[in-house]
């Protein structure tokens, strides 16, 4: 099964765009993609989940792990997501209280500038 990762820049943020299904098989690649960014010194990261078709708790684990790692570098990890079926997973697990979730990369970047 496919997982696509694209990296771009937006203001002070690195944007990691995720496409496809995030599960126990693809989560390691997702985790590596995040860690690579942190290793490169990118401590302000937007993870764009708009292209994600499926995300389970292993994917949540990667995001929580990334957030913890970034906060230990005084950084932040914010999310872009408007899909109900994905948002639902964050809501049920209470993670909407941990992550700032935006409607678009623009909105996420704008919030970071203010």
């Amino acid at each position: 099964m496919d997982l696509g990762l694209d990296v771009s820049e937006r203001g002070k943020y690195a944007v990691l765009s995720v496409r496809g299904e995030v599960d126990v098989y693809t989560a390691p690649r997702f985790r590596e993609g995040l860690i690579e960014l942190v290793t490169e010194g990118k401590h302000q990261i937007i993870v764009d989940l708009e292209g994600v078709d499926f995300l389970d708790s292993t994917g949540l684990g990667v995001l929580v792990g990334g957030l913890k790692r970034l906060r230990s570098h005084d950084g932040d990890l914010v999310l872009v997501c408007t899909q109900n079926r994905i948002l639902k997973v964050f809501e049920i697990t209470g993670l909407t209280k941990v992550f700032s979730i935006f409607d678009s990369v623009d909105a996420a970047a704008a919030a970071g500038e203010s």
Partner: protein
Amino acid sequence: MIDEVVKLEIPARAEFVALARLVVSAMAASDVDLPDERVDDLKLAVSEACTNAIEAHDATASPERVRLSYWADDRGLGVRVEDRGPGFDPAALPDHPPVTDPARLKFERGLGIPLIRALVDEVEISSSGQGTAVRLLMRNAVASD
């Protein structure tokens, strides 16, 4: 209804979890009256249960496989996920996620079974030293809440 059952047996390996989900979609497409959203919820639950089953086999380095049954009947769409791992005590896990407790944010794990319980209408976990079976039922539109 017994001949409505589809059985799938997969190696206890991460790459086969997607297949376990795919069969949920296929069953839903042909046989049941569930809104897409509930089918997605069931796929998520199957993914969680399969992931746990695979990790249970990892723990024992057992070459055993994960067995799934899928059935569709008047009540809805059901899936059973069975492993031969070391088992665990489901009662020792919290029934519902303490979503308001900021302490849970420390954990990258432990979200699977709470998600299953939150998303699926009926969940039955039976576990022993011989393995674990998770039975999930998503009720048809009429019967569901």
